[in-house]
Structure formats: structure tokens, C-alpha cells
């Protein structure tokens, strides 16, 4: 089994208002995600990235085309629950994912739904909380946690179901910088140590920079795709799309316009310093 997720020719239409006007939120999208990959999908609001995310775990079904998760077709209703166990999902609002009154009960929710035996649920809950670094909060009420901590609980709740892949729909949009860092560190750890396939939807480019592959969406289409270096070096195009690039990448772009010879794919401060010193 090669592909964890296969999106083939997916188009998605929905009614945008009472007059029945149809909007194409996704236009003939094709994406393959390999097992263990860390893919980031960026784009501004309205680009279709969230809509795409919800196709992966069958919350939405394509109007045209197919989505396969570990060989299962999302259009097949019999497979829906297996697909959702395979592809877990974390949403944007930290509060609106937590169901129980104490942390460990919430993390147990997923396994309970799967009918996992009681003793094993305990083991999974403990492991999941350890992985996200929240074990000491196991008996606390979720309303006492910060946004970043709540999101980590949400992630724990998903990994307690032992998925092969996690889709995160703008998980850091409502968090402060330290919360964002905690969440992205956790996601990276899951990808590297547990080999969980990750699809992260975001508009923060510092999150995109740490992934294996970046896909840029605009108006329901994929407009750029490649490694972070390949994508972020296209500064002009990204700016036209209304997206951010790392400040040093932007600086390199501006300096090249002035005739200074610098490589296109500088992403970090250290790379920039090195390149500028080599100019001398």
C-alpha cells in the first residue's frame, strides 16, 4: 500500500445562498499523500483548504471524483467509521472539540466510541497524554486549560484512537505564539517518532516551513506545490496570492531585484547570514 491518502479529480459544489447559486469550492483536485509524510496545505480563507480537509475523513463527500484513505473510498458509507478511525481530525476551535468534564474522560471518548475494552482504554489514554506532554493534567477540568493545552488534549483524543494519519484544520489559528509552538512541536513529534502521516492546514508559514511538502491553494485550485524551499522561493507569486513568506526569504527576493546574487531558497536567518558573508 503506497498511498495513505489519494484525492483524485475531486470537485465540490455547494449552495451559497437561498437562490440556489452553486459555488465550486474545489476544482478538480489531485493530491497523493504517502505514508509518514508531513504535508502542509496553505491558502487564505476561502481558498478551499478546510473543505478539502473535511473530504479526507468523509465529513464531506465529493460532488465529482474520489477520495481514498488507506484504500477505502470515502463515498462508501460502510467504511465511514473505519476511515474516521484511520484519519483522525483536529479542528480550529479548542473548546468546541472537548466533550467531557475532565481531561482523561475526553481523551477516552474516541476509544469508547470504537468499543475498545475498558482496560485498554486506560492504557491508551495514558500513552496519548504522555505523548502530548499533558499527563499531569489528566484529572483537571478542560476549562482551566490554555488554548494550546486544549489543542494538545484534542490531539491526544485523536491519537488514542490509533489513527494512521491526522488531519489538522487550522489548529493554531486561535492560539497565541507559545500555544502555536507547543502544538506544532507536538505535531512534528508525532510525525517523526510515531510515523503518523500529517496533513496540516494553516496560513502560518513558519508551520509550513517544517513540513516535507507544501501545497498552496487559491480559489479551489492548487496553484503551487513542492518542498518548502521550492514553494517559498516563489516570493512574487505568494505575495500576489496574499500569503506570507519568511522575512529573510522576502529580503533575499528584494536584494536579488537590486542585482545582489543570492540563492532563491533562503528560509532561515542562519542561511541568510551565511550567504551574505560568502558574498564578501
Amino acid at each position, binding site marked *: 500500500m503506497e498511498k495513505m491518502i489519494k484525492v483524485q479529480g475531486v470537485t465540490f459544489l455547494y449552495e451559497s445562498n437561498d437562490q440556489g447559486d452553486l459555488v465550486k469550492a474545489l476544482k478538480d483536485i489531485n493530491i497523493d499523500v504517502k505514508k509518514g509524510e508531513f504535508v502542509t496545505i496553505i491558502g487564505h480563507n476561502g481558498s478551499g483548504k478546510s473543505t478539502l480537509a473535511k473530504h479526507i*475523513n468523509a465529513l464531506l463527500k465529493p460532488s465529482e471524483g474520489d477520495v481514498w484513505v488507506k484504500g477505502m473510498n470515502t463515498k462508501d458509507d460502510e467504511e465511514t467509521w473505519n476511515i*474516521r*478511525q484511520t484519519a483522525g481530525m483536529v479542528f480550529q476551535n479548542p473548546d468546541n472539540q472537548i466533550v467531557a*468534564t475532565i481531561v482523561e474522560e475526553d481523551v*477516552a471518548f474516541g476509544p469508547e*466510541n470504537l*468499543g475498545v475494552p475498558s482496560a485498554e482504554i486506560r492504557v491508551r489514554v495514558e500513552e496519548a497524554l504522555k505523548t502530548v506532554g499533558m499527563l499531569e493534567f489528566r484529572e483537571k477540568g478542560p476549562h482551566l486549560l490554555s488554548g494550546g493545552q486544549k489543542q494538545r488534549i484534542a490531539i491526544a483524543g*485523536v491519537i488514542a484512537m490509533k489513527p494512521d494519519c491526522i488531519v489538522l484544520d487550522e489548529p493554531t489559528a486561535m492560539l497565541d505564539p507559545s500555544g502555536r509552538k507547543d502544538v506544532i512541536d507536538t505535531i512534528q513529534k508525532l510525525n517523526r517518532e510515531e510515523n503518523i502521516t500529517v496533513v496540516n492546514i494553516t496560513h502560518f508559514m513558519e508551520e509550513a516551513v517544517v513540513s516535507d511538502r507544501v501545497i498552496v491553494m487559491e480559489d479551489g485550485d492548487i496553484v503551487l506545490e513542492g518542498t518548502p524551499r521550492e514553494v517559498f522561493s516563489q516570493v512574487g507569486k505568494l505575495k500576489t496570492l496574499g500569503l506570507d513568506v519568511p522575512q529573510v526569504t522576502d529580503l533575499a527576493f528584494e536584494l536579488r531585484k537590486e542585482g545582489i546574487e543570492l540563492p532563491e531558497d533562503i528560509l532561515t536567518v542562519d542561511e541568510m547570514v551565511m550567504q551574505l558573508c560568502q558574498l564578501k
Partner: protein
Amino acid sequence: MLKDITIGQHYPTGSAIHKMDPRIKIIITFLYIISLFVVNNFIGYIYVVAFLLAAILISKVPLSYILKGLKPLMILIGITFMINIFMTAGEVIFRLGPFTITEEGLYQAFFMALRLVFLVMGTSLLTLTTSPIALTDGIEHILNPFKRIGVPAHELAMMMTIALRFIPTLLEETDKIMKAQIARGADFESGNLISRAKGLVPLLVPLFISSFRRADELAMAMEARCYRGGENRTRMKELKTHGKDYFALSIGTLLVAVLIVNRIWL
């Protein structure tokens, strides 16, 4: 005064009562309430008080805390007392203008008030010694057998859990919205009943709308975690009754039995 409401609060002490099976606790509380309606004489009340005080002692919840919970209800207890004292027919012992106090009235009022006090104390003890989840679980289990006649036991329990989970979150949100509207000059304090009710619109509309949105998002998150109702669901924390629970249950049953006997024979 909001802080003094102890019904619904949880006071963890790790006592034997805290560790009891919630189903048994609910049943015992039920039996206790029944006994409060059965009792009708002084000696009977002594049994009830003994039972209640023993329970409070074992629970390690300070008596002062439980008594504090009676404060908000003083008015109700006072009114009940007054009604009974002045409205009961019988041998008049005191007269003040149009108001008469009878001996029967005095007894009635006293015992009625006592009943209320013990009722509140007893039910408070239930919630003080049982966490909301355990309570919900207990209720779900007790209602389970009634599923055959259409009682949605699991759904009710799920609703209660989610409601309890969101209470602090919604309180926070209410506070935020209130502040935002006050910052725009809204007034939630002055005016008569009608204008104050109207004034609540800028608070209630946003709250409702955000609650609907929450419900929507939460439903999606639950489905994403494979929630599909109560069928074939397991639980991490399974309820187990122990010897101690049955012992307590027998004491509760004994109390009711003794009081029934007491009422009939005395």
C-alpha cells in the same frame, strides 16, 4: 451569594462515601427522601438525623459547608414556616390581630421546616460526594433498563455531560459579551423589569448564536471521533458495586422500614 449555593457543587475529600458506586448513592438518596415523607413524629426525626449526621461524618465534608448551602433557601424555609404557623387550624394558643397561631400549626411549621432543611442537606450531600460524571453515569445506568419503554438513557446522559462541560465556558462567554456591550454603552442594571428584559437582547442573541455554532462544531468533532450514539460503546470507567455499597443500601432500606413501623405503631 452565588458562591453559597452548594447544591450541584462537588467537594472532593476521598472519603468512603465519595468512593461509593453512584447508582447506590442515588438509590439511597431516593430512600432517604421517601423516609422524610414517611416520618411524622419526634422519635422518627431522631432516626433521620442520626442517619444524616452519620453520613456527613463519614463523608468528611465539613458540616459548616453544608449548612452554608442552606443560606439561599432561608427565605423559602421562612415562608413555609410562616404559612404553616398561621394557616393551620386547631387549638389556638396565641392571637395577634387577624393572625392566629395554633399548637398544631406550631408543630406543623416546625417539622415542615425541618423536613426542608434535611431534604436540602441530604441532596447536597449526594452532589458534594459524587462528581458530575459519576452522577451522570449513575443516572444513565439506572435509566438503562427503561430503554425498552423508550427512555433515551444514553442520550440524556450525554446531554447532561456536555451541558456540565460547557457551563464554565458559557459563563466566561457571557461575561465577555456583557463587557463588550457595556463598552458600547449598554446598561444591564438600571430600569424597570421590562426595560431590563429588553436590555438583555444584546447579551442573549450573541450567546444563542454562538451556542448554535458551538453545537454544530462539537457535533462534527464528535463524529470525527466515531461517535454514533450509545450502541456498542464501552466505558473507560466501569461502575462496580462492592460489599460496602450493599451494606450502605441495607442501612438506607432499614431506615425507611423503621420509620414506616414507627409511623404505624406510634
